[in-house]
Structures are given as C-alpha cells and as structure tokens.
C-alpha cells in the first residue's frame, strides 16, 4: 500500500465529518425560515440527502467525478461501487487514503443538492424531490466535480476554485433558479403569514454551517499545512466581514439590524470566500466577505423584481455570492503560502478569463440540465403537491407528522 501522511489523514477525516455536519446545519438554517407547518418537510429535504446521495455517491457518483478522465468531460467507471478504492490513494490526494478522499468528496456531494431545496421549499412533492436530487447528483454534480477537481476541462483551463464556489454554490444556485421557475410560486406568496417561524433555529443552523465550513474550506488544502491554515483564516474573516456588510446596509436601509440579516451575511461571506479560501491573504478575505455581504443583501431582492419564488434565497445568497467570489478570486489570488496562483492584483489579469468561463459554463450546464430534469419529472410524477396539501402544510400531507405538538 502507498505510504500516507498521518497528519493529513487525521485532518481530512475530521474535515469530512465537519462537512457532513453542515447538512443538518443547513436543515435548521432553512427550516427556521419556513412556516411551522412545513418545518419537517424542509428539514427532511436536507436530511434525506445524507441517505440517498451517500449511496449514489458510492455506487456511481464518485467514479463519474474521479475516475480516469474521459475527454475532459466525465470520469471513467473503474470505481463503480467503490471497488479498488481501499488500500490505494487518489492521484490528486496522494498523502491520504483513497477511502478518506471518497468520503470527504462525498460530503460535498450531499450538501450541494441540499442547498437547492431552499428554492422549492413548501410546495414540492417528496417523491419529485427524491427523483430530482438523485438524477441531479449523477447528471449535474458528478460531471461538474470532474470538470473542476477530477482533471476535467475547467481544471485544464486554469479556473481557480479552491473549495467549490462553482461546483457547489453556483451549480446549486443555477439549479435553484431553474427549480423556482419550473415549480412555480407558492400560493401564499406576498401574504404576511409567509414570515419565518423560528429564527433562533435559523441562527443555530448558520452557526453550524460556519463551523462546518472550516472542514469544507481548510480541508480543501487536502493537507494539514500552511495552505489549510491560511484557508481557515480567510474563511473565518470572510464570514465575519459578510455579517458586518449585510448588517451595515440593512441597518442603513431599514433602520433595524436583524438577526436573519446577521445569519444571512455570514453565510454569504462563507459562500464568497469558498473559491478563494486557499489563494488569498487576510485583508482580501475581508474585502471579499464585505463585498459579498452587501451584494447578497441586494441579491435577495432580485426575486421580487423578476417574480420567481426562490423561497429561501438560494439564488440571492449562493448565486450572487458564488459568482462574486469566483470573480474576486481572479482579482485577489496571491498569497505567500500558495504562490503558484496569482490574480489581477498580483499581476495576472489573464486569470479573470478562466474565472468568468467557469461561472458561465457552470450556470449554463446546471440550469439547463436541471430545468429539463424538472420538466421530465413534472410530466411523469408531478412536481407540486395539490392546493389542499400546500394549505395544510407538507409535514402532514407528505410525511404524516407534525413538527410541533404544543
């Protein structure tokens, strides 16, 4: 068996567990923003991804992402069912066991489709959800992960994406936009009783996301080294600055700093720093967080202008934040711990080009495949619950349970 580094392995084992923890964190973050009659439905749409995506990842998803490169587009089938993984290492992560790499990447595969669920919350049939995220994982996530991390064409083009700004955040946001359009608006959109039902839950979820994001970003160094340290620092500072940016503009615009604003700004900052985490120094990290915090505040208003019902603002936070982060990575990249990668300010203006190509390609691919998938699912099993179920709430209608018995 090839030799491994015990420090790197220990760090990636912990990082994988941290990234898994983000998904129940996301469930709380989202569920608190919904109405009490849908709290279980929203939670389940994140939580169930830990079941279905994990199994799909082992059977097929991993090998399509990280099998040998076929034309820059997709991975080969040598790891179907994870055969041949144990006792080896992956070429892109030579100091840790292959099994740890599979699991670490699998946790990313879980949270990405879970992120999409915020767009169609409170109205999608559970059956449609299961089919959608299963197909999405295989047809959208695995190819995208291959393009960026599996030696595919975006990696060869030189696009910088440290921890998954395009693969995770832009891809999920583009799918979320497709879903918001394909599924349609909630019946109650615009009514006052659409307000969040449990913001303490949302804030706890945001805190768990922040905590788990250290595994997501620092772990993406795939080593316990200087790059991991700088990514950890950049991640934390961007989250903090994102919170300050959102709160500042909200306080100025509405006269009140809200708790949901603080949570949203922190998450926006984390989204924004994801592609840049291991490539930037502390001050640029704060600049990215602050910029993204402000832009996402305005980003969540896009949906009312364009009249799509992205219920929990996946587009406004992950789309706007992910895109801004990807571009700013091309601007600010350049840190002593990772000198190979340089952006505009470090004298490499050409880096902006692959960054923009990466964003556009990801949006176009994820949006179009997602939209077609949803239309096909609508044709065969239907996307929406009926009006009566939407009124009674999806907890009862879809799961035969009630979140709160008070």
């Amino acid at each position: 068996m090839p030799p491994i580094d015990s420090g790197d392995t220990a760090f990636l084992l912990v990082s994988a567990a941290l990234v898994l923890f983000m998904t129940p964190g996301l469930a709380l973050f989202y569920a608190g923003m919904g109405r009490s009659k849908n709290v279980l439905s929203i939670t389940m749409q994140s939580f169930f991804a830990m079941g279905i995506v994990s199994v799909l990842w082992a059977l097929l998803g991993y090998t399509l992402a990280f099998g040998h490169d076929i034309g820059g587009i997709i991975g080969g089938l040598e790891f179907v069912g994870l055969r041949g993984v144990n006792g080896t290492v992956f070429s892109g992560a030579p100091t840790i066991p292959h099994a740890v790499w599979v699991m670490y990447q699998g946790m990313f595969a879980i949270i990405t489709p879970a992120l999409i669920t915020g767009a169609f919350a409170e109205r999608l049939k559970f059956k449609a959800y299961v089919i959608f995220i299963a197909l999405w994982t295989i047809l959208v996530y695995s190819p995208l992960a291959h393009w960026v991390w599996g030696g595919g064409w975006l990696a060869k083009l030189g696009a910088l994406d440290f921890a998954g700004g395009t693969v995770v955040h832009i891809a999920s946001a583009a799918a979320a936009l497709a879903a918001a359009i394909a599924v349609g608006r909630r019946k109650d959109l615009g009514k006052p009783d659409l307000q969040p039902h449990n913001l303490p839950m949302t804030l706890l979820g945001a805190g768990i996301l922040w905590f788990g994001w250290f595994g997501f970003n620092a772990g993406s160094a795939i080593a316990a080294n200087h790059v991991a340290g700088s990514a950890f620092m950049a991640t934390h500072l961007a989250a903090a600055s994102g919170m300050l940016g959102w709160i500042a503009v909200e306080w100025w615009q509405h006269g009140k700093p809200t708790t949901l604003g603080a949570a949203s700004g922190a998450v926006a900052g984390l989204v924004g720093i994801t592609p840049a985490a291991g490539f930037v120094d502390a001050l640029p990290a704060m600049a990215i967080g602050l910029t993204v915090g402000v832009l996402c505040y305005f980003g969540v208003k896009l949906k009312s202008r364009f009249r799509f019902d992205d219920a929990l603002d996946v587009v406004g936070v992950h789309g706007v934040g992910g895109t801004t982060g990807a571009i700013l990575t091309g601007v600010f990249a350049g840190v002593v711990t990772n000198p190979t990668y340089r952006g505009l300010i470090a004298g490499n203006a050409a880096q902006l080009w692959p960054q923009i190509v990466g964003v556009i390609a990801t949006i176009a691919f994820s949006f179009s495949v997602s939209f077609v998938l949803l239309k096909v699912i609508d044709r065969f099993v239907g996307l929406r619950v009926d009006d009566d179920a939407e009124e009674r709430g999806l907890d009862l209608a879809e799961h035969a349970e009630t979140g709160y018995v008070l």
Partner: protein
Amino acid sequence: MKKIEAIIKPHRLDEVKEALGALGITGMTAYDVKGFGRQKGHTEIYRGSEYTVDFVPKTKIELIVEDDLAPKVEQAIVDAARTGKIGDGKVFTFDCEGAVRIRTGERGSDAL
C-alpha cells in the same frame, strides 16, 4: 350575574390577576389571542422585505361575577391593564343567565 371579557396587553396579565384577586375573585379564564383595533399591526423585516403584521398578540380574560361586583371588576381591570399607550385593549360586560358547578350541581351564584 355578569360576564366580563377583557382584551389586554399580554404583559399586563399578572397585574390584572392580582388586582382581581384583591377583590375576592375566585376564578378566571385567560387565553392568547390575536387581533387588531385602532392600534393596527406592525411592520417586520425579513431579508429586506417588509411584512405588515395586522394581527397583534393580545391576552383575553373571561370571568363571571355577581352583579354588584361587576363595576368594581371592570374598574380594577382598567386600572391594572392601562399603560396609557395605544393598544391597551377593551373591557366588555354581558348579562349571564346561568351557571352550574359540574362537581356538585350547584346553580346560580353558588356555582361561582
């Protein structure tokens, strides 16, 4: 007998209960309600969107008293619930035609 219903600010409930206790009232019913009067609702802000909430949380209390006690109860509620700001609520008095204590079968004011 009279039935007194009062809609008050939730945080005045304890003061009202104590004031009525001082008058010798032996029981009452209280529950959380939502409603609006001249106070109207308020505005809440979520991710930059402003929601107007029309129904304001209030507490409603109900009790049945002897006729001669009713004006004192009415006044005690008014004094204890008043903050002087809009939204203090209202007190309503009705005639009550009958009462039975289920355990003993006592009727009328004996049942109070």
